[in-house]
């Protein structure tokens, strides 16, 4: 399989996984889905990096697989074990509307990226619609979910989408910047973990429904 073929397949799979993310109510499953998306994006980067002989791109892909595909999801899974909430029971929008939103996202992403020219990469441009769809999926999750764990998953999807956009446009940022971004993301997830535990300890729940006291 050529690098371009791998990239195209990855783009399609990421879009399918994104739709599944919007539809699933199980937080455990959504963590698995975002891990799968991260690993796929890493594989695409490695394939392109090898075909171009660009080792920084390969390294970026390996980093994505290790940190976003393995470390962050394992971390989130262990957090999930320490809260009692495993299912997003009542998101702000129901299943049918979620499906409509997911399909709308795919179309918006495809049409919004149709006139952006990307210079000479083997099939990398094909990732751009998938990347934008991932950004929008993350935003949708953050806006429509109530459980704090779901919000963290949403942020991770959003950040993955941004990283994939970076890959599609420029093969990724310079390594020092990529490292800084990965570090910040890990710290942000860790801080989210701290506050999730405190919410459970102080408020007795890991749902944002309890966070409605500050107004005006």
């Amino acid at each position, binding site marked *: 399989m050529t690098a371009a073929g791998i990239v195209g397949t990855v783009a399609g799979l990421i879009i399918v996984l994104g739709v599944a993310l919007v539809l699933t109510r199980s937080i455990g499953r959504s963590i698995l889905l975002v891990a799968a998306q991260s690993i796929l994006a890493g594989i695409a980067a490695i394939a392109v990096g090898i075909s171009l002989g660009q080792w920084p791109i390969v390294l970026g892909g390996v980093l994505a697989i290790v940190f976003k595909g393995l470390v962050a999801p394992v971390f989130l899974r262990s957090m999930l074990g320490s809260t009692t909430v495993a299912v997003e029971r009542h998101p702000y929008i129901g299943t049918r509307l979620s499906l409509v939103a997911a399909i709308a996202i795919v179309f918006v992403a495809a049409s919004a990226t149709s006139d952006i020219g990307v210079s000479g990469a083997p099939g990398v441009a094909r990732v751009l619609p998938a990347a934008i769809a991932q950004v929008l999926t993350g935003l949708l999750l953050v806006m429509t979910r109530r459980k704090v764990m779901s919000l963290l998953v949403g942020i991770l999807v959003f*950040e993955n989408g*941004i990283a994939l956009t970076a890959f599609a446009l420029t093969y990724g*940022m310079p390594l020092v910047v990529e490292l800084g971004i990965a570090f910040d993301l890990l710290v942000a997830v860790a801080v989210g973990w701290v*506050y999730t535990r*405190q919410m459970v300890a102080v408020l007795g729940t890991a749902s944002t429904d*309890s*966070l409605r*006291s*500050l107004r*005006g």
Partner: protein
Amino acid sequence: MTDQFVTFAVLVLFALPVIGGIIAWFAPVHRAGAVAGGSIVVASGFGLALAFPALLGTRVSGLGGLVFVDALGGLIVVIVVAVGLIAILGTPAHLEHALEDGTPSERDPARLWALMAWFVGGLLAVPLLDNLGLIWVAIEWTTVVSALLVGITRTPAAIEAAWKYLILGSVGVGFALLGTLLAYASSVDLLGETSDALAWTRLLSIAPGLDPALVRLAFVFALVGYGTKAGLAPFHTWLPDAHSQAPSPVSATLSGATLAVSLYALARFQQVAAGTLGPDLPSGLLVAVGLLSLAVAVPFIVAQGDLKRLLAYSSIEHLGICALALGFGGPLALAGLALHLLAHGLTKASLFLSAGGLVASGRSRRIARLGGGLSADPADGRAFLVGSVLLSGLPPSALFVSEIAIVFGGFQRGWGVAAGVAAVLLAAAAAGMLFHVARVVFGSPSRPPTVAGLRVRHLLAIGVPLALTVLLGIWAPAGLTDTFDRVARVLGGAGG
């Protein structure tokens, strides 16, 4: 200034707050302040050593092109240093109040100090970096660290505020990352895949040749992202919660320094965008966002019932004025912007500390329950009264000068309607602010005062910034006005 000194200064400045914070985290509680505070003071010293030549007209660069300081960067360093020092001086008094109320953990003071060192260290790094990617990394770092600070008291309200700040801040800053990589992509055709394609100095020098479609998107995303961090409406919803729930020294830093640093990052994008697209689109968007911020903040100031939220909405108002000035452009409004950022940082930091004192002695945040501040807590009451008058832009405040400059600058540049509306909103905000302040400081206390002995450090932290704001308002030697003009030239895209 030699390359070796720049390299040394920058490395010390980056590393010391990190190390100081780590040591303070594990240090005995009574030593944590000296370690963390000391590391910030030394780092600040190196920051000023890099900033002053830049402010006087000699740009500083080094560390293989990663560091570049012009007059604008120098001004932001000065603001971060000033606000950081005010916050450090005010922290011991805050901790005393907090201990009286009983903190959840006896390790909390050490953690507060450690996080403050990391927070201020991150803020100091931003204006020195000549790399939009690393600027993003530093700003996101300040977001996650300050999210921990906002919720450090672990009350339900503080946890709620910190959670909103973390989620909205991360998503917002995510947009800024998208903007950053679009700016990078816009230059790849010209520069190739090199890391200096993220250097804003490089982008600025080749701005006319960048891909306009990508630059337009990049600016819009940067406006949403850094606009969120700068508390500009409609991306401001996290700000009143975070700034009011945080411990007072943290509120002071969030409001006085973080907002200025975020606006700085946005200004760098605006310069590049204006170079590629011409000034119309960036200016129009900034003026719209600025006016909206004023319009959103003013009703909440007038109808406010919570003392710290009053100050938080006032920050949205003032950053709105700054966005307007950036949008107006022109030497007068931009020099006004430079003075405004500095004077707002000084007064707002002082006000959050004196408000913290009033809240502690009155045992409430509700304005209705706080009357008689001048007799219950004379030092904080006086500082709060004077600070609010200065913040409202009445003479002899430097904010009077800067607001006049910005509004007149707007008229000069053909933004008459926007400048006129802004002037009316500013007057309304000042009236609302002073009405609430009068309720807080005058009258007789509703309950017996419980003032702890005030420390000299606290008095310095609330008094000196106000004296400086007055001084900046009435005293303008040629060296100082030259410096503000230099910053204005950088903001206008002409370099300085």
